[in-house]
């Protein structure tokens, strides 16, 4: 098999990977923003109302609905292309070395498919636990805010994170997400040809910051819920 699968050249496939990847990172920020509204509950006199309203908006707004399709498509493409590229990469070296490669370069970059696979498993569990539960199975309570009825996503989340095992699973996976992002963000710029002696160090720094901020931000929520109940 030549490296010309799907009629796209290797670089085209990688460019698609990187563009979709960057798009997914913007989603991660949005998702985190909404999640953080949950923490209002732990202020004196706080509730999950803001979170529920935001969740409702995300679930019903027509623009968001369209983007939801794009987002799912994005995940699929990112996973599919990631797999194709990886399989080609494995095939490019049929006989392996006795003493495997040694180089000073970033360790995270060498395990993208592994961290990616873990994130994929997490994603499936996460969707089953929340998204499908609410959307598909309708297995969710309701709450009335200002006279309007909403799905009580807040309560669902709070209930889930009572289990220490579940919390640990989430936190560990967020760390792997961090590993993935650490290479992913700056690598996407390199793939898109955006390498510059002045700006690339900044992009690399930003990549590190993102790979810390996002996992930490996400991890705070289950930890706060668990230790406050």
């Amino acid at each position: 098999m030549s490296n010309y699968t799907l009629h796209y050249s290797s670089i085209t496939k990688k460019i698609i990977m990187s563009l979709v990847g960057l798009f997914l990172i913007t989603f991660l920020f949005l998702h985190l923003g909404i999640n953080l509204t949950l923490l209002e509950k732990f202020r004196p006199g706080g509730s999950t109302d803001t979170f529920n309203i935001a969740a409702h908006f995300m679930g019903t707004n027509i623009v968001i609905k369209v983007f939801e399709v794009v987002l799912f498509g994005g995940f699929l493409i990112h996973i599919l292309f990631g797999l194709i590229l990886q399989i080609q990469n494995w095939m490019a070296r049929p006989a392996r070395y006795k003493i495997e490669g040694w180089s000073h370069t970033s360790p995270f970059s060498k395990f993208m498919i592994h961290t990616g696979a873990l994130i994929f498993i997490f994603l499936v569990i996460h969707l089953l636990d929340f998204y499908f539960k609410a959307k598909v199975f309708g297995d969710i309570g309701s709450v009335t805010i200002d006279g309007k009825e909403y799905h009580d996503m807040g309560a669902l989340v709070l209930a889930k994170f009572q289990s220490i095992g579940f919390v640990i699973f989430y936190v560990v996976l967020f760390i792997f997400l961090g590993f993935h992002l650490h290479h992913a963000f700056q690598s996407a710029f390199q793939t898109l040809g955006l390498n510059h002696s002045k700006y690339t160090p900044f992009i690399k720094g930003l990549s590190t910051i993102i790979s810390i901020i996002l996992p930490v931000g996400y991890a705070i929520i289950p930890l706060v819920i668990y230790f406050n109940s």
Partner: protein
Amino acid sequence: MDLTLKIWRQKDSKSKGGFKTYHVKDISPDASFLEMLDILNEELIHKGEMPVNFDNDCREGICGACSLYVNGRPHGPDSAITICQVHMRKFKDGSTVTIEPWRSRAFPVISDLMVDRSAFDRIIQAGGYISVSTGGVPDANEIPINKMKADEAMDAAACIGCGACVATCKNASAMLFVSAKVSQLALLPQGQIEAKRRVQKMVKQMDYEGFGNCTNTGACEAECPKEIKLTNIARMNREFIGAKLGAQKMKL
């Protein structure tokens, strides 16, 4: 110095190979790595065995023929240098040295430590040049070139085509090699004229040869004996995007 050598032996491309262990004694630390192999080969010949085949020629780090994967690193334990220029003082007395050929689907093993790197030649043949014929060109100084660009082009042009980038890449990708040539020519005004066509043709050939995809790990840059920069890969990607999006549809 006394050393234990574990060397990949394979009679020809069709045979199945395997590692064989050899011992060499009293090697001078001032000998080069290939001279150490010469000494081993002399002993093997005296014993009536076939010497170890390995590509080498200039032994001064410029021809790009030598291609040994030593203790997990292409061109051995030193950086910015080919194995022919590594001297034995870089190794510890009494240590074990494992020597393997480049491993890549696009570089099949020919014999022992020799591999077939003609894929690189075919990539260059696909477009790694300026299509100028002999004669009929303007005076050399009619094309002033920004010194920084010329220097950058020279950095990229320093590639010796040894294939260490492919050998070290976990994906056996040839992006650093291809991008070095694409960059050199794209940086020069003479080369820009056919730049859009060149990058597409070379990438197409590269993919056809069965190299892996770049995942920007940077191992190639770290191991390149001529320190070719990763920025060349970015430039090639940029050129490629520009060619795909910006240029008219063309038959390659």
